[in-house]
C-alpha cells in the first residue's frame, strides 16, 4: 500500500481571496449578478454620500433660517430679503406668505377660508419638500432588501454549476469542488456588501428625514399661528 499525499501546496495556492480572480473564473450568470451587485453597491454609496451632504445642509439651513425668522421684526421685509432661497423652511414660509398675500388682496377677507388655505399650502409644501429630499431613500430600501437575495441567487447558480462540474469530472475531491463554491459564495458576499450599508443608511436617513419633517411642521405651525393672529387683528 502506498500512501501518496496529493500535491497539497499546489491545491492551496489556487485558493486566493482575490476578487478579480474569483470574478474572472465565474460563470456568465454569476458574473452578471456580481456586476449588478457591484453597481448597486456603487449607487448605494453615491446616494449615501450625496444624501448625507444634502440632508445635513437642509436641516442646518432650515434651523438657521428659523432662528433668523423669529428674530426678524417685519415678516414682509424678511421675506423680500431671505425668502427666495432654495431650502425647505424658506419654501414653507414662501408658500405661507404667497397664500397670505393672495387671500388678503381682496376687500372682504374670508378668515376661515384663509386659515384653511394657509394650512393646506404650507403642509403641502412640507410634503413636497420631504418627498423631494427622500426621493433616493427608496433605492436604499430596495438595495438593502433585494441585494442579499440576488447574491444568494448567484451563489445557488454557482454551486449548481460546481456540482455539474463534479458530475462531469467523476471526481468529488475537494480540489474540484472548492473553487466553484468559493466563486459562488463570492456573489453572496458582494450582495451583503451592498445590502448592509444600504440598510443602515436607510434607517439612519429615514430618521433624519422624519426629524426634518417634524421640524418643518413645527415651524409651519408657528408661522400659521402668527398669520392667524395677524388675520384676527386685521379688521
Amino acid at each position, binding site marked *: 500500500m*502506498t*500512501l501518496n499525499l496529493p500535491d497539497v*501546496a499546489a491545491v492551496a*495556492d489556487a485558493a486566493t481571496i*482575490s*476578487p478579480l480572480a474569483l470574478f474572472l473564473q465565474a460563470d456568465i450568470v454569476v458574473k452578471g449578478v456580481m456586476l449588478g451587485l457591484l453597481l448597486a453597491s456603487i449607487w448605494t*454609496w*453615491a446616494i449615501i454620500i*450625496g444624501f448625507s451632504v444634502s440632508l445635513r445642509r437642509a436641516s442646518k439651513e432650515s434651523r438657521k433660517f428659523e432662528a433668523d425668522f423669529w428674530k426678524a421684526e417685519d415678516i414682509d421685509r424678511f421675506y423680500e430679503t431671505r425668502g427666495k432661497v432654495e431650502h425647505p423652511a424658506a419654501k414653507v414660509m414662501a408658500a405661507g406668505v404667497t397664500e397670505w398675500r393672495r387671500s388678503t388682496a381682496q376687500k372682504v377677507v374670508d378668515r376661515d377660508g384663509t386659515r384653511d388655505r394657509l394650512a393646506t399650502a404650507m403642509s403641502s409644501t412640507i410634503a413636497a419638500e420631504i418627498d423631494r429630499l427622500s426621493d433616493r431613500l427608496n433605492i436604499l430600501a430596495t438595495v438593502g432588501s433585494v441585494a442579499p437575495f440576488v447574491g444568494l441567487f448567484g451563489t445557488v447558480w454557482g454551486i449548481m454549476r460546481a456540482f455539474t462540474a463534479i458530475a462531469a469530472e467523476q471526481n468529488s475531491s475537494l480540489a474540484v469542488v472548492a473553487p466553484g463554491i468559493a466563486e459562488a459564495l463570492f456573489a453572496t458576499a458582494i450582495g451583503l456588501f451592498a445590502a448592509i450599508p444600504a440598510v443602515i443608511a436607510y434607517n439612519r436617513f429615514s430618521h433624519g428625514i422624519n426629524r426634518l419633517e417634524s421640524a418643518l411642521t413645527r415651524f409651519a405651525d408657528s408661522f400659521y399661528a402668527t398669520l392667524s393672529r395677524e388675520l384676527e387683528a386685521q379688521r
Partner: protein
Amino acid sequence: MERAEKIGLGVATAGHVLLFGLLSAGFLATPNPLKLKTPPMEVSMVDEVALQSTAPQISTAPPPPSIAPEQGPTEDAAPAPEPEPAPEPTPQPTPKEVAKPAPAKPQPAPKKPAPAKKEVAKAKPKPAPEKPTPKAKPAPAKPSPAKAKTDTKAKADAKPAAKASTKSTAKPKADAPARASGQGKADKPKGSLLGKDFLKGIDTNADAPRRPPAPAPAAAMGPAQKSALDAELRRQLKPHWRPPSGADADKLVTLLEVRLDKSGAVIGTPQVIDQLGVTASNRPQAKLHAERAIQAVKLASPFRNMPPEFYDQWKWLRPLRFDARLNR
C-alpha cells in the same frame, strides 16, 4: 442636490475601485498555513508476509572447530572403575564406528552425553560437510546459541566424530576413550566431562575450512522485495487508474489476472478474476470499474523497473487488486 449626488457617485466609485484593487492585489491575504516546509514523503507499509522462508540459506557445514579451554585436571579420573569399558569400543576401528558407540551408550544412560550423541548421529549421514546442499535445512544443522554454551564439551566430542568419517580411522580411537571417560565421569559431577586428550582430533583437522562457505543468495522474494515490487506496480498503475465515482463506488474491488513478459509488457488482455464489494447501489458502476482497471493496466503496459531476477514472481500477476486505496 444634483451636485451632491455627483460628488457622491464619484467618491463611491473611487472607493469601490480602490477597495477591490487592494483586495485583488493581495491586501488582507493571509499567509497560507498549508504550505509545507518539506515535501510529502512516500510511506510504504508491508501488509503481506510471505509464507516461505526467505532468509539466506545457511550452509550445513559445521562451524569451524573452536579450541576449547582446558578445564583443568580432573581429580577423579584415575579412580574411576571404567577403564575396562573403554577398551571395548577400541577394537572396532571401522568407518562405522558411530553406530557402535551408540549401542555402547545405553548401558550407563547418562543424561548429559545424550544430546551430543544425537548430534553425531545427525551429522553423520551428511557425508560432505564442505559442500552445502541447496535444500534449506537450517534447523538441524544450526546449533542454537543457547545450547552452544552448554554443549561446548559435547561439540568438542561431536566434531572430531563428524570429521572422523572422512579421515583416518585413528580418530575414533582417540574419541572412544574420551567418550568412555566422559561416561565414567557422569556419575561424578565434580570433574570435567572431557578427557585430557580431547584436543587430539582437532589438531589433525587443521586443514579443514575455518569458516562455513558464504551463504547463497535467497531464491524467493522477501516481504521487503514483495512490497517494493507492489509499490512499484501501484506507482505505475496509479496515473492511469480512474475509478468511477458514485454511491459506494469506493467499496468496489476488481481483481485482475495479468501476464507480463520479460520486458514488462502485458501479454494478451487482462482477465477479470473476481469483483468484490458489489452492492445494490454501486452495481451500475461495477462493469465500468472492471473496464477502467483493464484500461489502466493496458495504459501502464510496459511496466518498467521490474527486477528481472524475480521474473518468476511477476510474470503472472494474480490477483492484481484495483480498489479505492490504489487511487490514494
